[in-house]
């Protein structure tokens, strides 16, 4: 069950990244620094939040994350797993 949920979360992050930034990451790229590499800015972050809220079916309060939670695919995955 837990594995199935993680798979869903990975798809949610993957879809949001693809929507907002137009990139698809392979598993070995999940730790890539998205901010340092200029792939994500504050507007892209907000667009990702909106997309993930739709897919999760719940609001993501901005108090529950900081810019650093969008540093990598792994960070974003960890963010949506805890909210």
């Amino acid at each position, binding site marked *: 069950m837990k594995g199935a949920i993680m798979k869903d979360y990975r798809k949610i992050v993957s879809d949001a990244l693809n*929507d907002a930034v137009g990139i698809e990451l392979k598993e070995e790229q999940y730790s890539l620094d998205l901010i340092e590499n*200029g792939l994500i800015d504050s507007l892209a972050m907000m*667009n990702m939040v909106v997309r993930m809220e739709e897919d999760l079916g719940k609001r993501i309060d901005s108090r529950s994350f900081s810019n650093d939670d969008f540093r990598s695919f792994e960070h974003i995955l960890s963010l949506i797993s805890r909210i």
Partner: protein
Amino acid sequence: MILKALREQAETDRICAVDEEGVKLSFSELHARSDALATFFLETLSSKAPVLLLGDKENDMLTCLFACMKSGRAYVPLTTSVPEKRADFIARDSDAELIIAFHTELLSSSPLKRLREKDIEGIIENRLGKRVHESHWLKYDDMLALLYTSGSTGTPKGVINCLGDLENLLAAPDIYYIGGPGMRVMNNFSYMFSAHMQHVYRTMTIMGSQMHAVPGDIQKDPGRLVDYYLKVRPDYLGVIATTCAMLLTDSRFCHEEMPELKGVALAGEVCSRKLIGDLFERFPDISVCIQYASTELTTVAVGNCITKEEFGTIKTEIIPVGRPVPGIEACLWDENGHEVRDGEKGELVILSRRLCDGYWKNAKDTVQAFFHLPDGRRGFHTRDLMIRRDGLLYYSGRLDNRIKVGGNRVELEEVETAVSSLDIVHQCVVRPVTSGDGRVNALIAYVTMKEETTDHLDAVIRIKKALREYLPLYMIPQKIMILPEFKTNTSGKIDRAAIRMFHEEQMEKLYKRRSESSPDLAK
């Protein structure tokens, strides 16, 4: 007028600015410090050339603005996040004689004379008590500020704002603006943008409000921004719609946590019914001031102040931008320069006794955008399309490729020029991604490469990193889509109509995927 107002405010014990650290600046200190710095300018500067100001919202940035005015010269404000090459272009293009830099190494290799914050402190200390005679002050028709915006030719465009252009700002009644004597107002807008005119000169100097600096890095982080608001407990906020939407994602942004908030001014972007509705849900007792302005208009030209009750009577999805402020006539013209009828779309043309003097060293664009009327008034083609219903103006799109991204003005051609000029890129077309309410959520660059690439991620990273050297961050497309080739028309040029159609198809796919993945929330 502005300097006399500052002198009058200096007679009070009011605070005019508070920085991020809580350091306060009173009107009397601002008056004295700007006199001291202006004295130095008059002693040492040989010409009336502008002064380039590099900084964020330091209290002494205000000192510099007023010192320039008191010594009869213009300022060119630039934030420190501007890329070096862009800043260098602006330094040369503006003919600036001096750079004043606050906490930045930007333009450190420039041949221009440079003063840092510690130099400014020493200069002011040595001249405190000196007064600058009114005869040195900036005159009504002199340039007050040279503000650089995105330019369609691929380089930034300087917009000339004169002291007299503030006339409409001073004449308008308070309902078009926010603030009041001793009121705490968040100073959210960069001095690079014309919005600083209303905040510094109307809200602060004329109305006697206390401006609380919001540094650029806090501005982009909703959690830190609300933390900061909760610390300051402002009476008024002036923000763009994107920032307002961002603030609303934080549940603490509400009346219970911020009971002092009396009004919010929204400028720079289309305001949707949902956004204003959400805002009134959180703050039922505030008034919301919609402001339409542009760099060329210097001040708010059209405005609309609404309460929750009045909002309830608005039935349209897009909230009207309002009515022209006193001193401004807002016309809607067809392509032949004839006024359109109510309910029909037309270009908003602003007529006023005072408008900006045009574009710096750019007579061609100035003649295209500005004109004179026989009655002495001037006209400005905004290129914004609007519809008038019951005397209220509703935004309805653009006549050209200028858009607003996160409240920042962007000419798509300038972004295309920057992307196309990169070594690895062959051609590029940039299109906006819009939400249902017409707000631009992102930019997408469709790109063909000089050499075939299989590693798209690497290519996207290289493009984005290279763009940081040329464009401010807000102009870098969020999405880069690499295509094998562009369709071309019979003359061999990119078939832009085909790209537009391809873009629309991509957007449709995106929205369809969203509505399928979450039918209830995607509405």
